[in-house]
């Protein structure tokens, strides 16, 4: 990783108010992973009743830091103080005992278990040593009601979408008496409505004097709920600043050491012939109903909607991942309804899934193999019969540079990279073969600002190079700023189609809920 000589002042605390004694304090905490110094002598203070945002690039060490606070990781060196007392947080169980509970970036859910079982995993209430099932069920209901999440306690987690799983993970953190609440990118795959709910909850616990550590890459959120921000870079402490007063540009500079003029690049759309056309499509599972949409060359088409609105499913159905009950999918005018991924790729359609762990990457394999996987029969990766290992390595290296993979080690197993960098690997896969139509489902889940810019530019270049792009995102600004046409989904139906200047927050949101009112 590159080191930046200019230092940004020590732990100068520019946020004056509430001199309350820190609830939690880290002093010179370091954490070394085999080969990496993930966290380097970091100081950190959390006051009761504040939302303290952790901000930093992918791989900066945020998750590592909170994992240690949550007792999931042991520090290599350094001291923890809880309510002034030095503590050894030597297990999650122990941390829980102190009221420290966390929403982990990569979730702590057991797919085969039900929502209810997951909620109380490790803290089951018992009577005479036996599980008190009724109590557990009632408490589960209570929590879900309180949080207002539309989850059925007895569904199995593996049947839930990533968004729904995120809600379970959040509910899990709220189950017990809280003193410190840690949220590691909780909104990564949530939409407006759930996010709003979550923030209400955060306000509540704040009021009860709970200290909240909040990790996000979304600047807008920092404004909405942050009190103070601690910036990390390359595992080092950079600064702690006030959330309300510090301008975004300043934050980004602190985080990256560089200056970005624009988060969202200007895209020069020049819509050409229709590449993808979907006609009255209905999936067998009913997650999409009579949806029609089209994507032309040289444009970015946004898909917005609530969780479960089917915006993913429509793309999945096109790509042959969902069973289609009725309707047509045409690619460059040819009927391709119900064809599988293999044929779709051949025809130049590429779908980038939202959940990199579940559907995207082989976690235990090297970056190189993951990236080249879709195109092993094509140059430069091979000649159809044999592989070209050198060609492969060179091309993957180049893609890694383009997307600024950190650390740039393409032979390392994917699981050893931070979330955002895993996302880059996932995107790189789509650049290994000629593609006319891309469908990006949540392309910037858990990606830092710098990388976001990179990804947006990546998408822009594709578009301006004449590709048609379907951008499915729960992050509304993304859709607003990047697409020249947008469809809003509601209960599996296309609720509205907006173009150009019509694509404004009010208009889109209005279609999000409309029928609720009715």
């Amino acid at each position, binding site marked *: 990783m590159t080191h930046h000589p200019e230092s940004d002042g020590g732990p100068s605390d520019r946020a004056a108010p509430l001199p309350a004694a820190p609830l939690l304090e880290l002093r010179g905490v370091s954490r070394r992973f085999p080969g990496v110094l993930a966290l380097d002598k970091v100081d950190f203070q959390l006051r009761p009743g504040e939302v303290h945002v952790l901000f930093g690039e992918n791989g900066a060490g945020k998750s590592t830091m909170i994992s240690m606070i949550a007792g999931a990781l042991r520090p290599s060196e350094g001291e923890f103080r809880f309510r002034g007392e030095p503590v050894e947080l030597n297990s999650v169980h122990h941390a829980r005992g102190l009221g420290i509970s966390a929403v982990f970036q990569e979730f702590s859910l057991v797919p*085969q278990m039900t929502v209810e079982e997951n909620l109380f995993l490790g803290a089951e209430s018992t009577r005479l040593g036996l599980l008190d099932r009724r109590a557990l069920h009632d408490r589960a209901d209570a929590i879900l009601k309180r949080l207002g999440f539309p989850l059925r306690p007895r569904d199995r987690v593996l049947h839930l979408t990533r968004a729904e799983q995120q809600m379970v993970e959040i509910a899990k953190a709220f189950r017990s008496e809280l003193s410190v609440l840690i949220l590691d990118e909780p909104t990564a795959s949530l939409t407006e409505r759930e996010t709003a709910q979550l923030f209400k909850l955060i306000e509540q616990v704040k009021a009860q004097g709970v200290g909240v550590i909040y990790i996000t890459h979304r600047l807008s959120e920092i404004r909405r709920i942050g009190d103070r921000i601690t910036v990390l870079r390359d595992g080092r402490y950079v600064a702690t600043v006030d959330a309300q007063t510090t301008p975004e540009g300043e934050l980004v500079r602190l985080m990256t050491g560089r200056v970005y003029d624009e988060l969202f690049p200007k895209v020069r759309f020049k819509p050409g012939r229709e590449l993808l056309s979907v006609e009255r499509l209905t999936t067998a599972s009913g997650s999409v109903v009579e949806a029609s949409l089209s994507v032309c060359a040289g444009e970015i088409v946004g898909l917005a909607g609530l969780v479960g609105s089917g915006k993913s499913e429509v793309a999945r159905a096109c790509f042959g991942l969902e069973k289609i009950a009725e309707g047509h999918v045409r690619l460059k005018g040819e009927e391709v309804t119900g064809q599988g991924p293999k044929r779709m790729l051949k025809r130049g359609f590429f779908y980038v899934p939202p959940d990199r762990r579940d559907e995207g990457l082989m976690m235990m394999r090297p970056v190189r193999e993951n990236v080249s996987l879709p195109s092993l029969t094509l140059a430069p990766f091979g000649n159809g019969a044999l592989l070209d290992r050198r060609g492969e390595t060179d091309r993957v290296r180049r893609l890694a540079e383009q997307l600024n993979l950190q650390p740039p080690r393409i032979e390392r197993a994917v699981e050893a990279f931070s979330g955002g960098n895993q996302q880059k690997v996932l995107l790189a896969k789509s650049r290994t073969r000629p593609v006319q139509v891309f469908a990006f489902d949540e392309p910037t889940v858990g990606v830092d600002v710098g990388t976001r810019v990179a990804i947006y530019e990546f998408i822009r270049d594709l578009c301006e190079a004449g590709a048609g792009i379907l951008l499915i995102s729960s992050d509304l600004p993304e859709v607003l700023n990047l697409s020249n046409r947008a469809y809003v989904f509601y209960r599996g139906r296309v609720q509205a189609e907006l173009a150009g200047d019509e694509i404004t927050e009010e208009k889109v949101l209005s279609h999000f809920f409309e029928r609720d009112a009715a």
Partner: protein
Amino acid sequence: MAMLEQPTPGAAAPSLWLKRLFVRLGVLPFLLIVAVIVFTLMSDNFLTGRNLANVARQSVYLTIVSLGQMFALLTGGFDLSVGTILALTSVVGALAMAAAFGAMPDAPGLAIAIGCLAGILAGTAIGLFNGVGVAIFNVSPFIMTLGMASIGFGIALFLTGGVPVYGMPQEFGDVFGFGAWFGIDVPVYVAALLIVVVYLLVNWTPLGRYFYAVGGNIKAARLSGIGTRTVLFATYVICALLTALGGMLLTARLDTGEANIGASMPLESIAACVIAGVSLRGGVGRVENVVLGALFINLVQNGMNLARIESYLQTVVLGVLLILAVVADQLRLRYIADLKD
């Protein structure tokens, strides 16, 4: 399985209703019924009280071992040493019992107690090693248990020189091997008891859930504050303990300590679990189905013997049935999906 506990209301067509039942109960009950019908038609002696008692008793040993095996599978492992555990338990138990009996011929009860204790300890010891290897040194369960199987078998041979151990008090076999109350054999009572205990442990205690959690997603389990090493360790100890109990029952049945029993147990017990829907990837499985699985295998073997199916054909048929059972279970998974909407 989302719907198992809460069937969605609404006009359920009989076929749908059957589907539901199928989904809730799994394929085994149906297969069992079919098997019973078929064999009853093929042999008059099959559906007789004493033959069913027969089957029940014959199933005891595989059932108990399969219950143990289930724990290993739930956590995403195996136990290939169950065969050796049976053998070692049998040999050590018999040696100790015979010795004790020889020392005090007038206290058979005490001798039996000592023998059983010794045997069960010996068997469980193997489980301890397995547990340490898997939980502490994270050796792959396959190799760990395979290695211990080899080691334990060597020891059993050492102790006996390969010849059966006899000299246990007659009462041991009379009670635990062939005893019966109200026409039901003692081993069956023991098995029933163990089944209940395991059922409670798995479904009604936190520890029980932790087996599923560790098998389902060990990282998540750790992040949820579960002592995964402890759970893994417990897994193999419990598996060995159950198997050892089965081993003593078997010894009572054989009336001798044998180093050469149980060779086919590892695969048979895993098979019993898998056709019962226990996933080899961990995290999925139900006690009651495992019992049915073991029962099914024994029932089929018994039925084929009574139907006088010649033994080469029997191996073929058994293979076919194993596969069919799982194919049928695939259908079930489809239906589950259907019933979700």
